């Protein structure tokens, strides 16, 4: 059983040795002659401006949050859509109307976010 996995462990070992070798060999074997220009952060040949630890606005969290609306929508709508023909044959309009109400409720939330400017980034 465990012997079947030996090749995988071998590959893992080889990969980590190779990765470590690539990273550290240049430091070990390469010549190290730093000067002021060399150790400057590379900015397309220009002198760097400002500090590196600047705060970046993470407005993207809004999109991530709003994505939940669609996430939930997909979770419920997809199985329903796959089985819709069977459901419709069995329940008639009752298979359609509750999902429609659900979608209205869900989309109302999305329209609310949109109207309130939740998607405006600045």
């Amino acid at each position, binding site marked *: 059983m465990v012997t079947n996995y030996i090749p995988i462990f071998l590959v893992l070992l080889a990969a980590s040795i190779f990765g470590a070798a690539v990273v550290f060999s240049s430091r070990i074997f390469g010549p190290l002659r730093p000067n002021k220009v060399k150790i400057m952060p590379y900015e397309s040949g220009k002198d760097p401006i400002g500090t590196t630890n600047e705060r970046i606005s993470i407005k993207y969290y809004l999109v991530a949050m709003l994505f939940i609306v669609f996430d939930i929508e997909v979770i419920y709508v997809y199985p329903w859509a796959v089985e819709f023909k069977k459901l419709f044959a069995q329940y008639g309009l*009752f298979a359609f109307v509750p999902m429609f109400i659900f979608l*209205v*409720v869900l989309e*109302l*939330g999305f*329209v*609310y976010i949109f*109207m*309130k400017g939740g998607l405006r980034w600045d």
Partner: protein
Amino acid sequence: MYQNSTEIFQMMPFIIIGAGILLSIAVEMSIKKSELILPWFSILIFAVSAVISIAGIQQESVLFGGMIAAGGKAAIFNFIFNVGAALVVLNSVDYIKKYGTYYGEYYILVQSSVLGMMMMSGAKDIIMIFMGLELMSICFYVLAGINRKKFSANEASMKYFLLGAFATGFVIYGIALIYGTSATTKIDDIISGFNRLITNPLFVAGFIFLLIGFSFKIAAFPFHMWVPDVYQGSATTVTGLMSTTGKTAAFSVFIIILAAIFSTHSINKFTPYFAAIASLSMLYGSIVAISQDNVKRMLAYSSIAHAGYMAIGLAAGNISSESGIIFYLAAYTFMNIGAFGIVSIIEGENDTQLGISSYAGLGNRNPVLAAFMALFMFALAGIPPLAGFFGKYYVFIGAIEGGLTWLAVIGVISSVISVYFYLRVVVYMYFREPQEEIKIYSDNLSLSAVVVSGLLVIIFGLFPDTLLNLITSALIR
């Protein structure tokens, strides 16, 4: 699917509130002047829902595929939630104007929290309890910090959210253990197998977790840390909502999940737990409230003490203590909403005029407000002809019937202690000269909310047996 017209009638409160939330969202996003519409719309749907709930008290029916019960005691709880929320909304209009921070979401969140409470009080499935709890709690977290430019409101919201999330963790872990041992989430099945399940230590552990989670929500003693800061930091009207209807909803869950003990006389294994939190909450709340100069903070500690009085009923676990708790909750809701209503009228902008010294000389300056504040203070202290006295009386009767006389004695002792800090407000209002210039804004709407709660407190106090018979008949069915 639903043929029975009674069921559709009893479903109406849920549908009305649910549709009301959606409509409010639509109004809020499309109309600029929504602050003129939303409060009145909220009051309308709360009033209609309260009337329909109480009209359906006679028949109990199970709705939504065995998920929610309506009628019976759920009808009484729904009535308390809806009327309480309507009074809070009425109280909020002027308060929000005074602070000048209008967010239309305020009313939508109040409506959603009421829907959550209604789901909790009628739950027939543990998952439903959890859904309702989360709906209510998340709305409360946001409501606590709705005044988002105020530092103390942010602090309150954050504290409430972190500790509330922790308590929710307890609840869900308890639910997992209960489901693991009983293999069902249906409360009726758990109740019918209660005597067999209670011998399983894992089931008891799950139950204890559930009880701990809800003890947090009722603000009982060892889980009370958040109460003073949250009640003080939130907007006063929001505090009025959280401390009354939120507590009522949590107690309704206690009554639902302990139904086996209350109605089929199973052995109450949880008596020591409830006796401990009851006695400690009563004494702690009453003693610490003595040293509070901020009226909101004083009411927060009094809220802890009142949770203790009600928990006596849970420790006793018989039918008279159950109806006593419900009576107490109804009385407490209206007297506390009234008291917080007056605090919100007296309060100036930016958390000023909250200290007890701002009440000095109120008896001369504004006799009506002072009279109502005195009424609510007497009611909270439990002075006889008012609702608060009968609430305590029925709970203590239940405790004595259940053989817990010592708990009733502690209850009486701590109510005697609590008289000091309630009457201190009255003394300041009538026997002290004002130290500072107090500006009171004219708040006719808030005053009307206060008057309505005052009348309810008096009516409950004058005809306690009528209400108690109504509650008992709803429970026995």
